[in-house]
């Protein structure tokens, strides 16, 4: 490099989208539900509850009901293609599977979303050995070409034993390097079937299955200044920016105390228009959750909010994090790990509306060498 850059080092790009609408907006009511439904792999949920020194039983039950997930060790990918499995689990409920201990930018990894697609991310060597049709990954280094994405649709009519496409896929997926430890969870459409039948199925095939429950951690802050969100109440014309709201929610989840005045150490202060609220409880649940669990949790929280008075509980927030190493984030959009592998969304629930924040990493490909400075 003739003239290397020594002054400007831009930070990696990431995307933050924000929208706000009322609960019963007929056209747009689809938006927050779409955000929840498309986000297949939910790893952690953080809920901020004002004025709750002790979480009531109705809420704490909704955190732990039906939330168990299973860790299946050394599962080969060909098991997800067997017709018994597809008929018993994929078509009769919502099945989620995600590799738990691989990294998307260096290892091979795989995941299965509830719509029946198997997403596999492999390196060049394995891709050439598998000989299945795939595309170059859009966000990792494109030169040298190294990461390939293979998507297999198990819903197709040609995906049955006896057809040549099926035989080719199952023989390729029997590759010895395609064995991973998966987190598996299943929610049946029919309420009579027990969700643990998926664990029994894998156990009968001879794999090691461990049942795991969500890990719950609570922390309470005593006197907290919650920012005021209603526009007609702010009389000095200071509107709260959405990024500042998200920063405030982050401070509460991490246990950071905000002072009234800026000091030499920290310039982040309390919001200008605020309500003093006591006992803000931050509940952190770590596990592997289905989208139905999140939908029912949001419904429970909404009804809880309507029971409490608007002065002690002005609003509450729910943040749902995806796994930092999952191959897909929303729908089939590829997920990239830049500095932190963020893919999460936050819903700020008010009585009359909801604010939705979505954060995900940029999908631009990484550069091996920075752009040359052409003496400009």
């Amino acid at each position, binding site marked *: 490099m003739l003239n290397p850059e020594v002054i400007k080092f831009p930070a990696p790009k990431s995307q933050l989208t924000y929208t706000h609408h009322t609960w019963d907006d007929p056209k747009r009511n689809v938006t927050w539900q779409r955000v929840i439904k498309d986000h297949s792999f939910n790893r952690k949920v953080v809920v901020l509850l004002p004025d709750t020194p002790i979480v009531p039983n109705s809420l704490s039950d909704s955190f732990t009901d039906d939330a168990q997930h299973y860790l299946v060790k050394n599962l080969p990918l060909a098991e997800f293609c067997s017709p018994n499995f597809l008929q018993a689990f994929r078509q009769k409920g919502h099945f989620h599977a995600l590799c738990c201990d691989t990294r998307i930018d260096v290892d091979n990894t795989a995941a299965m979303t509830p719509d029946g697609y198997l997403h596999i991310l492999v390196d060049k060597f394995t891709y050439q050995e598998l000989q299945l049709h795939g595309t170059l990954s859009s966000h990792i280094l494109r030169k040298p070409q190294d990461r390939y994405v293979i998507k297999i649709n198990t819903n197709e009519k040609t995906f049955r034993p006896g057809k040549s496409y099926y035989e080719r896929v199952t023989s390729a997926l029997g590759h010895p390097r395609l064995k991973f430890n998966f987190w598996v969870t299943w929610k049946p459409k029919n309420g009579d079937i027990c969700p643990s039948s998926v664990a029994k199925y894998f156990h009968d095939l001879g794999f090691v299955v461990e049942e795991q429950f969500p890990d719950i951690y609570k922390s309470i802050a005593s006197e907290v200044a919650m920012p005021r969100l209603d526009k007609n109440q702010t009389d000095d014309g200071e509107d709260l920016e959405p990024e500042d709201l998200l920063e405030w929610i982050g401070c509460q989840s991490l246990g950071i105390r905000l002072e009234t005045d800026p000091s030499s150490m920290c310039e982040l202060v309390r919001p200008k228009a605020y309500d003093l609220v006591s006992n803000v409880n931050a509940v952190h649940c770590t596990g592997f959750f289905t989208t139905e669990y999140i939908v029912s949790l949001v419904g429970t929280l909404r009804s809880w909010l309507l029971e409490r008075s608007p002065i002690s509980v002005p609003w509450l927030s729910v943040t749902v994090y995806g796994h930092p190493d999952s191959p897909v984030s929303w729908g089939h959009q590829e997920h990239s790990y830049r500095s*932190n592998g963020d893919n999460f969304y936050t819903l700020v629930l008010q009585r009359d509306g909801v604010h939705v924040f979505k954060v995900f990493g940029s999908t631009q490909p990484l550069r091996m060498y920075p752009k040359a400075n052409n003496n400009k």
Partner: protein
Amino acid sequence: MKQLESKYWYLKVHMDYERKNLPFQLTAELVKVVIVGAIDIMFGELSSCLPLDVLKFNEKTGIVILRVPKDNYAKVRAALTVCPSMRVGAVDVPVIYTTQQASSCLLSLAGPERSIV
């Protein structure tokens, strides 16, 4: 859906040092002085005057949460990676800074960490 740009980057840094080497205990203000000193050594005085906030310092675990403007993120992270020691009260104490999580959104520092670090 509105696209928003975050103005700040947040880092969660772990400080690894021997407590018996220190003449007195570290507080959050001292941590800011020490980190600004590290940036000063690598990038000079102009970069060290840029705003840096210490949001939280946990003395027992040695975890610091910092907030820097977007354009300084790369410099702060680079300076912390190569810094060998901190100067506290005329004593040079060796320290290792490990950036555990860094993101443009503070809320993601509360999220799940990578399974293999």
